[in-house]
């Protein structure tokens, strides 16, 4: 009898947790559902309706493409550059005898603590002077610099765990240093590389502050389009939902795939620090 009531109590808690999860996710779910409705069907809100791709076809025929292109190019190039510069740096910090490597690591991290407003004005003036305002290059430069510390911070915790024996063995077997780096070290920190790359992609894709301040027309990315859609296009809820879905989906999928690696990266770097 007692066991029976305990089971009921457990089930009630679990149902409550399910409801809580759905409630928390509701704004995203609602946007997602609305994006498959026609404008006329948006109000009043309904759960049952005939899904249509109408708003997507309108949105995809509109001026969204340049923004998508900018976002994709800026994000991809930033992630690549950040990895190419960040991984050797954290490798150097962990394995090479660099004086004050702790201080350099701390310096890297501290640059990320700086509020973006602290550097936005001079960056604007400098890029203006170099004629790079409103260009993808400017965005890529800034995002790369912001992303490198993330890559260093996240790959470091994986590099530290590589047993030195493996590197000694490689040396005895006559494996060159370059080969060791590419064929032994990189595969061992695959998880760190993926999770930092995903984090960089998510942050860059979503960043609004620099995209807003360093671009006007040509290099604007999706977050800026998102912010100005209502004032430019007027009130079209289904279209707005379709655009929001397009903007949300890539980082959501990447985030969901990588959540385990992400938590490990975030907490390992800090908790064991």
């Amino acid at each position: 009898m007692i066991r029976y009531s305990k089971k009921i109590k457990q089930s009630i808690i679990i149902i409550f947790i399910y409801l809580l999860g759905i409630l928390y996710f509701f704004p995203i779910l609602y946007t997602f559902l609305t994006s498959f409705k026609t404008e006329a069907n948006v109000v009043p809100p309904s759960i049952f309706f005939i899904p249509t791709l109408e708003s997507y076809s309108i949105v995809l025929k509109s001026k969204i493409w340049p923004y998508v292109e900018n976002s994709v190019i800026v994000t991809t190039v930033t992630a690549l550059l950040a990895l190419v510069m960040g991984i050797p740096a954290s490798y150097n910090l962990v394995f090479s005898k660099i004086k004050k490597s702790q201080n350099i690591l701390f310096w890297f991290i501290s640059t990320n603590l700086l509020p973006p407003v602290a550097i936005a004005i001079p960056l604007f003036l400098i890029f203006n002077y170099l004629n790079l305002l409103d260009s993808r290059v400017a965005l890529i430069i800034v995002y790369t610099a912001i992303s490198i510390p993330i890559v260093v911070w996240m790959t470091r915790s994986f590099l530290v765990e590589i047993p030195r024996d493996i590197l000694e063995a490689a040396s005895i077997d006559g494996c060159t240093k370059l080969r060791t780096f590419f064929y032994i070290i990189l595969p061992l920190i695959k998880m760190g590389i993926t999770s930092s790359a995903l984090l960089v992609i998510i942050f860059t894709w979503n960043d609004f502050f620099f995209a807003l301040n360093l671009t006007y027309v040509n290099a604007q990315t999706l977050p800026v389009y998102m912010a100005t859609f209502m004032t430019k296009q007027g009130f079209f809820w289904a279209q707005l939902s379709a655009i929001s879905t397009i903007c949300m989906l890539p980082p959501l999928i990447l985030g969901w795939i990588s959540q385990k690696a992400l938590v490990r990266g975030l907490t390992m770097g800090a908790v064991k620090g």
Partner: protein
Amino acid sequence: MNKTKAKLSVLHERKLILPAVVVVAIVTQVPFILTLVLSLFKWMVLRPDLGTKFVFFRNFIRIFSDSNFYTVLLNTFILTIASLTLCMIIGMVFALLLDRNFPGVNIVRTLIIAPFFVMDTAIAVIWKNMILEPTVGFVGYFALWTHTKPIHFLGNYPLLTIIILVVWQWTPFFFLVLLAGLQGISKDFIDVAKVDGANWFQTFIHIKIPLIIRHVEVAIMLGLIFILKVFGLIFATTSGGPGHASTNLPFFVYKTAFWAWDVGEAAALAIITIVFVLFVAMMLFKFLKRRFVEVEL
């Protein structure tokens, strides 16, 4: 030749770190120093006739004698503390609820962390136009169903609206970190506590919290740093208004720089923002250190 150098098959060229250091230094440190310099000048971009003048600390003096500044400072303080507290509490509740095994637990976790990956401006637009809108948004329908007057969140409670949005976006981060902590606790500790007759609450306060205190610290410190930067949510919902009612420090700097084009004063404000961030972070760190010691004893 160095002994370890011979043993380990490792590239020792220090050049490897250079590109990263150079890029980060040029893009973040140089502008930071320039901000410091600019804060001592009077430079109105829209009034080139006035020229650029060295004015020492007059920008700072003007800011400190401006009543708007104190409104903004208070807003920043309220926004940060309220959001941080709520994120911590809700994140902890979620983490405790989901630190168990039942069918579909991963789906629920996935649903809860979703807002963390959504861009600021999308969050702002969705909440502003589809949830909090008093006529066709969900708040409007809720009022219809319950025969009450809809609450005009954005107009009447702008700062509260921003807090709601920040909490919705950042609770998942707290949840993730705290859950990682809770899952790292060995089951033996909990079992021993149960055998000793500790109830659920005692187990939580005396066993779980001390064991995950590092995770709590990490969540608070990183959360604080991110929440102090909040910008996009404000831009795309209230634009800091009405007046300065929902403006925080970063948004105030933005308005001064890119709306009023008062470069000197904006730079001075940016410096004050940094000092504020450092101050709050240090206070919090000290507080946590003290708490930490107490818990350990």
